[in-house]
């Protein structure tokens, strides 16, 4: 029973992290039809900012790092994506590769290729004991920040004029513009929110791993892509569910796969992705409105 609960905690905490990343990617994809490979580098920017602001008090340090990520995202949008608006999907994609590549190499040029250790308060890496259960504080922080951010965004998307405009733009950008939604402000806000999510996710990843490297964002973003596919590309709610679903699947495969097959774990996950794309291209969880329309 205890091990089962332990695994549940792992799954929810991992899923929360994936959900934050997947939502950031789905938001940009829904509005711009851009699969943003540079999302991972926003995480990296967050990580290095935490390192740069290491002398500030913890909360200020985190807030400053997230602010840097948001500003960076807005600059990236202005330089690399705005001039290409309306271009072919492949062009946008390669542009986001180029940004990701550029930021990674910039990080190596500036900070070197060795990992940088980031000291965060000790209580973050401690455990809370509940009966025989040992809950890492970072898991609680992860789940709690995901819950707060997701509910705040839920409120934003459903109750505020800007949020409603963004959902309209994600549904059909052309029609939304016809009825007076302003393209620039919607896209800028989308990048800001996406960066906020990436910044928080960057903090959570650094708090778990303790170090920052130039390519730390690549692997989580690939997983988040998978989560957005499972949730149905372009669907915001779907992306969140996809993230949690993938967290559960990863933990289940880790526990249940026979030892000889465990090295192939990722191969199985991606095989499942192919099946999802073939059988349920609209995502495993079909929602009332599908946002994937040309």
């Amino acid at each position: 029973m205890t091990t089962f609960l332990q695994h549940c905690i792992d799954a929810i905490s991992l899923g929360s992290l994936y959900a934050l990343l997947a939502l950031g990617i789905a938001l940009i994809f829904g509005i711009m039809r851009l699969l943003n490979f540079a999302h991972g580098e926003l995480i990296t920017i967050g990580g290095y900012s935490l390192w740069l602001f290491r002398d500030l008090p913890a909360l200020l340090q985190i807030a400053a790092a997230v602010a840097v990520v948001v500003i960076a995202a807005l600059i990236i949008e202005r330089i690399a994506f705005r001039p290409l608006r309306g271009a072919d999907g492949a062009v946008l994609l390669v542009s986001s590769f180029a940004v990701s590549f550029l930021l990674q190499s910039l990080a190596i040029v500036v900070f070197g290729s060795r990992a940088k250790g980031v000291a965060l308060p000790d209580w973050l890496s401690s455990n809370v004991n509940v009966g025989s259960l040992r809950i890492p504080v970072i898991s609680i922080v992860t789940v709690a920040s995901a819950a707060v951010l997701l509910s705040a965004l839920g409120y934003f998307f459903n109750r505020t004029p800007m949020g409603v405009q963004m959902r309209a733009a994600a549904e059909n950008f052309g029609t939304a513009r016809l009825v007076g939604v302003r393209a620039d402000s919607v896209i800028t806000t989308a990048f800001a929110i996406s960066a906020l999510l990436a910044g928080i996710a960057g903090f959570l990843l650094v708090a778990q791993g303790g170090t920052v490297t130039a390519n730390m964002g690549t692997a989580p973003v690939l997983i988040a892509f998978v989560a957005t596919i499972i949730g149905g590309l372009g669907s915001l709610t779907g992306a969140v569910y996809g993230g949690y679903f993938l967290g559960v699947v990863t933990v289940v495969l880790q526990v249940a796969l026979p030892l000889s097959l465990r090295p192939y774990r990722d191969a199985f996950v991606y095989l499942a992705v192919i099946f999802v794309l073939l059988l349920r291209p609209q995502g495993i969880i079909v929602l009332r409105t599908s946002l994937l329309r040309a």
Partner: protein
Amino acid sequence: MRIARAIWPVVGLWVVLAAIQIFASTQSLVFQRDVVDMLINVVLVVGLYTFAGNSGVLSFGQMSFMAVGAYATAILTIPQIQKGFLLPDLPGFLADAHLATFPAAIVVGLFTAAVAAVIALPIVRLAGLAASLAMFAVLVIVHEVARNWDAVTRGSRTMIGVPTNTTGTVALLWAMAMIAVAFAYQRSNSGLRLRSAREDEFAARAVGVDVTRERAIAFVLSGFIIGIGGFLYAQFQGAFDPNAFFTEITFLTIAMLVIGGMKSLAGAVIGAASVSLLTNLFDSIENGLDLGPVHFGGRPGLSALLLASFFLAVLVWRRQGLTGGRELQLRIPRRPAA
């Protein structure tokens, strides 16, 4: 004259590549290797173009076929005795297999095409982005298998001892041949039908184009060409590990294609050639440069930084790529009328 004009898109590219190779043969060994590297990239990008350029469906996983080609090359061309040490658990018929260089290349190409045919069955049914992402999943699966199938691929250890027969001339001849194959395909009925579906899928279907079938044909041909690219790569490097065929080469080849212009063969070749040569130039800058009185220190990561800036600059200023998606054209001034 009409014939010259019709085959110029191929001959023009041949002339450019041959000129670079002939120039290289008078230069340093380092530059000669850079040019072989460039010619291999040309083969890979032409292979990618054969599917992605003609169908309009970008594939994130075409380099899986480079992996298949390279590992098949290792198994077919490493001398048997050495293979006994390197791959002691190889199944018997593979342990005994050995082919001379040219037949090996053909077998590797055909084998890769067969693998592509199997993968094509599900993939070509998907549209647009879903197909691109499914191919990425294929790439990850091939990578994981290569990393863990110790008996055949040596797992994550480096595969060594592949005979290095890819010289500049060999690479040039293969690149020229693959350019001709790709051009013949895009001018064939099947190629034209696929290109019509790229421009307007619904209209093409309405006039009776079987888009799925044409995509599958292009996909298999693309597998063949990239398999040859894997063969050349394996026989050029002599040693490689699974990471050589993963995200880095995938992103690089896609960038080459888009930078050159995704919709034309000239775009594929010129994109691959220019980005390869620039990469080598940037690498030498990263290692430090002596420009007469000025010494430039160099710094790790600089090369990638310059390359990425170049990509962004090209995309922002010429979003259709360097060639704008056009083929080379022969412009001969008309003789003034008598």
